[in-house]
């Protein structure tokens, strides 16, 4: 009896000790050192939305927390659509988006009394990539892309795209249906957001597209420009012809819109209610003020001067609204 009770006590002690050790870990790591002038900021800033914009928002969060260590910024990746669902339910302060908000999403927000502002924070050029061994094309027209990607497309071989192309089977890689990238690409190429052929390899993981396209001679895929830049050694980017000649994807083309129709703006949507919180207001301000540094750190395509001015004007209006 006694021995057993001692043993039981042992087990209990171990379990309790383990629980306490776990509980003790993790606390105290939040250093709340005060920096800069004025009131130190504190509290949470909650972002969610596009996985394309996430690296940019995360970089902004990191730089911001370097200066305001009392603030806890978190960034989620529910996808542009998923992010707006949470945003319009009042669960997040700022929504990341790789396309503009849709009318039905606006309606959802209005129903819940959530007002917001659209701020452009970077540019992107959706890049169409093919295998390095693809020697027969450098440029595709929007019409040809549509022929490949439209909902009822039966194109399975390059020679069906254009009779002058060789007899090589076509392998398609694209974004999954939840992403803003998919919405934007289908909208720009097929004329209707979400309209796409279904028999391709859909993925939220652009590495799969990189590997797939790098591994098959006849493969074709698309993703954000920064992803292409990282993998430029493995893939070949196509020029896009939208009726005004072939234009290659580039920083400049994304900024001035000549890389049409696949140059796209990237946005954040702060809600009015969230902007009343000083830490959110400061974060949004920081996002625009330090935009160059943030964009550079995350390797995105920066805003033009004109776009910056526009965003800053919008911010001034916002600050007035927030009562500052």
């Amino acid at each position, binding site marked *: 009896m006694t021995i057993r009770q001692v043993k039981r006590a042992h087990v209990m002690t171990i379990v309790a000790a383990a629980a306490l050790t776990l509980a003790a870990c993790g606390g*105290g790591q939040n250093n709340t050192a005060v920096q800069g002038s004025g009131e130190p900021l504190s509290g949470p800033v909650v972002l969610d939305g596009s996985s394309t914009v996430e690296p940019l928002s995360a970089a902004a969060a990191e730089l911001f927390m370097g200066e305001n260590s009392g603030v806890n910024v978190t960034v989620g990746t529910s996808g542009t659509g998923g992010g707006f669902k949470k945003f319009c339910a009042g669960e997040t302060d700022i929504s990341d988006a790789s396309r503009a908000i849709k009318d039905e999403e606006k309606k959802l927000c209005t129903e819940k009394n959530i007002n917001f502002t659209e701020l452009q924070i970077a540019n992107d050029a959706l890049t169409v990539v093919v295998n390095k061994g693809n020697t027969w094309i450098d440029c595709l027209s929007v019409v040809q892309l549509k022929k490949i990607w439209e909902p009822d497309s039966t194109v399975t071989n390059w020679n069906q795209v254009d009779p002058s192309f060789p007899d090589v089977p076509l392998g398609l890689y694209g974004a999954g249906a939840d992403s803003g990238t998919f919405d934007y690409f289908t909208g720009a190429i097929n004329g209707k957001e979400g309209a796409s052929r279904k028999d391709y390899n859909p993925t939220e*993981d652009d590495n799969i597209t990189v590997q797939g396209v790098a591994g098959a001679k006849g493969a074709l895929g698309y993703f954000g420009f920064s992803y292409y830049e990282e993998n430029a050694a493995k893939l070949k980017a196509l020029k896009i012809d939208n009726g005004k000649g072939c234009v290659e994807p580039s920083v400049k083309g994304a900024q001035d819109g000549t890389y049409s129709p696949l140059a796209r703006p990237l946005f954040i949507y702060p809600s009015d209610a969230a902007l009343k919180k000083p830490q959110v207001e400061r974060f949004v301000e920081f996002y625009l003020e330090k935009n160059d540094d943030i964009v550079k750190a995350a390797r995105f395509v920066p805003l033009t001067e004109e776009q910056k001015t526009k965003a800053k004007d919008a911010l001034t209006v916002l600050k007035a609204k927030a009562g500052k």
Partner: protein
Amino acid sequence: MTTATLTLDHGLRKGRRGTLGPSVFAFVLWACLALICAFLFFLLAVIVQKGIARFDLDLVTNQPSKIRPETAGVASALYGTLWVSALTAFIALPLGIAAAVYLEEYAQQNHWWNRMIELNIQNLAAVPTVIYGILVLAFVVRAPLSIGAVVLAGGIALALLILPVVIITTREALRAVPEEIRSGSLALGATLWQTTWRQVLPAAVPGIATGSILALSRAIGEAAPLILVGATTFVTFNPDGVLSRYTTLPVQIFNLVPQDRQEFRDLAYAAILLLILVLLAMNALAIWLRNRYQRRW
């Protein structure tokens, strides 16, 4: 004499219709085992080979970073995992063990409602994990409880997830306690409560502890339900309470793998290695507890 025995042996073997069957069967068993081990070894080798470069102190002391991938760590995810699993244990173990004690020691097996509860618990163990995430998202994270996407929500989701496993393994452990112990205790005048608390439960502790730790190990590796209940992707602070926002190792790995830069993918492998080590440590604890407190009748 010797010749006679030999003939007899020979005759017996012949009587079993050939000797090929057993050896083929044994070979198939060995082949299965070898295949599993080969897969496991291959997997581990790949992870170690790709992850070892970044498996350093930075990994556990530094926070995730987009700006300096070379020294980025997963500290917030490691602490988030420890917090969530501690909470999971805190919620699931008392509930699960109590439920199992009721079903095993108190419940009348001839009542239809007890049989129905049993059947349902066994069914719950087979429910896809993401369902628990949806359940907690709908009722705990959002209205009516509205606690938000915090550590507690993650703990509740995983606790619900492992509850059936805890109940089933605890019942097995209780069933392994010989009936004589109960009868003896009751015969000496102890009540059912005294018998259960002082005799049956202590005797079942090794089994309960092993089962519980294995259930917790399963919970630690889960990403799907936690993504729904708010384990956010980019978190650079450690949780400071049950109402803090958080991330966990599986979620962090899930997010690191599709990143565009090679450094992040290397970091993902190092994080996988870390997760495996946490799991191995927990399994080792389970084995040690079982051996340390095991008794035989």
